[in-house]
């Protein structure tokens, strides 16, 4: 579903609208039968004595001749092709963008009752077929086939986490927050967020925590060896929209990996952004990722880094407490700010209200909602949160877009 809005935004001038417009009878059956169509007209019905009456809502439809007509006779969607296009745009793009929900429940009543046999499924599939990038090969299943990437460097970060620098034949194009599917033959495949910034080059970095069979196998690999990669997948932070703004980054545990990609992107063009503040909470001193790197940037005045750990007794004098501690004494002007939050879902339950209370709007607050994005292609369903697939429309979302999803943060 979430792929339809971008699909349609490219398809305004597509010949398919004329094709179905010429077939359409303009009878409005599609909209009248649609469980979610609600456009209406307002009419006055007079009593017979012309002295009283009632004002009533009556059903209307964007497919009708009169729908967009105005008093001087102008008609803003005068051809049936315009009206059909509008129907699709409203269903799958406009209302999606407005409410983050599609106006199609997939019941099929409109297709079933259409005398002209206009079927949204066919129309959208047709648009996909003519608009999406052709696949490099047409072999079925090719999208699941990994490419080889060579390990350039292996840097242990903590006891269990290691940074891999990889290189593959094809350059990578992505936004901070995107992820790669990484596989070891025979042991399986898993998604890993990209820890390096998008440079347009062929190398990239991943952080792997040894936890299961696959990750332990990855840890055993040495520079010069190969592993399998697919991607990058997903949508990251819209960095261009952040320029000129103050950035408040909030990281919890491994959530730092995602924000590192964003931080490095920002630092590469530091002068285009306002103040950058990073709040970073971890379990203990030992689990802090990229500590030296972060402190160097702090010392150089590039960013303002504040950390907190929950367990005492570490090597460094890091303040003790959970991440909410760091929200005290924050000097933030939220009107020109962006908040980017990346951590475990449990953390969002606390940070989101705090950020909103600070004055960030729902559109200014970006959240990383990583799930087990098994296929990365919007197909397997494992990363689905209610009605969306994280791999296709996330994992980075403005809060306004996911706040209605009960499975996103709750529970």
């Amino acid at each position, binding site marked *: 579903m979430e792929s339809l809005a971008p699909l349609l935004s490219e398809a305004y001038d597509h010949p398919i609208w004329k094709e179905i417009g*010429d*077939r*359409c*009878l*303009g*009878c*409005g*059956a599609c909209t*009248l*039968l649609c469980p979610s169509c609600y456009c209406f007209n307002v009419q006055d019905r*007079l009593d*017979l*004595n*012309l002295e009283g009456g009632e004002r009533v809502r009556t*059903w209307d*439809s964007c497919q*009708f*001749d*009169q729908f967009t007509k105005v008093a001087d006779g102008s008609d803003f969607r005068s051809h*049936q092709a315009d009206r059909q296009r509008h129907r699709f745009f409203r269903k799958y793009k406009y209302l999606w963008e407005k409410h983050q929900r599609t106006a199609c429940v997939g019941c099929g009543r409109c297709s079933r*009752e259409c*005398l*002209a046999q206009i079927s949204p499924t066919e129309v959208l599939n047709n648009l996909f077929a003519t608009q999406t990038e052709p696949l490099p090969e047409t072999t079925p299943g090719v999208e699941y086939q990994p490419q080889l990437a060579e390990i350039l460097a292996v840097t242990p970060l903590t006891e269990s986490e290691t940074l891999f620098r990889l290189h593959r034949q094809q350059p990578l194009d992505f936004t901070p927050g995107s992820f790669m599917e990484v596989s070891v033959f025979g042991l399986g495949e898993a998604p890993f967020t990209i820890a390096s910034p998008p440079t347009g080059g062929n190398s990239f970095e991943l952080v792997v925590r040894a936890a299961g069979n696959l990750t332990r196998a990855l840890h055993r690999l040495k520079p010069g060896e190969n592993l399998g990669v697919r991607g990058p997948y997903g949508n990251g932070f819209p960095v261009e929209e952040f320029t000129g703004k103050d950035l408040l980054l909030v990281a919890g545990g491994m959530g730092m990996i995602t924000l590192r990609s964003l931080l490095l992107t920002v630092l590469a063009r530091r002068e285009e952004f306002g103040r950058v503040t990073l709040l970073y909470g971890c379990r203990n001193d030992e689990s802090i990722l990229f500590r030296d790197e972060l402190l160097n940037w702090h010392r150089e005045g590039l960013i303002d880094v504040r950390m907190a750990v929950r367990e005492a007794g570490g090597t460094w004098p890091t303040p003790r407490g959970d991440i909410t501690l760091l929200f005290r004494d924050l000097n933030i002007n939220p009107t020109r700010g962006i908040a980017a939050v990346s951590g475990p879902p449990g953390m969002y339950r606390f940070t989101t209200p705090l950020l909103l209370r600070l004055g960030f709007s729902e559109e200014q607050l970006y959240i990383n909602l990583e799930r087990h994005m098994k296929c990365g292609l919007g197909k397997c369903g494992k990363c689905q949160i209610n009605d969306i697939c994280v791999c296709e429309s996330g994992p980075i979302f403005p809060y306004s877009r996911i706040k209605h999803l009960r499975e996103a943060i709750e529970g």
Partner: protein
Amino acid sequence: MKPRIGFFDFTGCEGCQLSVLNLESEFLELLELVEFVEFREVITGNGGALDIAFVEGSICRDDEVVRLRTIRERSRNLVALGACADTAGVNALATASSPEALRQKIYGCETPLLKTFPPSPLSDFVDVDARIPGCPIDGREFLAVLQALLMGRPPELPAYSLCVECKLAELPCTFEHGEICLGPVTRAGCDALCLRGGDRCRGCRGLIDAPRSAPYRKILEQNGLSVDEILREFRTFNVIDKGRS
């Protein structure tokens, strides 16, 4: 003074005037609202100047043209009442063969009263201020048009097709049980009465302003109709299609 209205009829079945009389529940209130000064079917007498003349029936003889023009002259508004007056309705079927041939066939001879021309809508001879389509008219629509004229605004007819009312009535598409239906190109406003009654739409309310003829014809052809059969379908009530709006 109450607005004065009159009813007149030419060639037709008088079912539309009857539909006005059938507004039993509203009739007494209607008498309070307007004065019925002429209504040949139930009133003896002639009414002089009228605010609204409702005229039923088609025109198919010279003496009818003369009478229609006299009615027009003494009426501030003239309304075509029903399909026959509006589009010549079912009468226009007579156009399918020549009046001479029909006359010979039915009456077997010629007399002056039988001298007719093809049944024509009122608008071929006089200005028509408003129209109430349908065979017969819908009493509620008659009241709505009357009210509009009394309020001094042009009456509006639904511009959309009958499919709308059929769908809102949650009826299955007539094409689904293998019958041809004129609903997709016929003006709504009858609340899909025939379809509710298990019949198909025969198009008595005339075509919508912008019927999608090309795609509709394609659908009829897909349903196995030949050109002749398609024409026959349209020829029950829509022999004369003037693409009026």
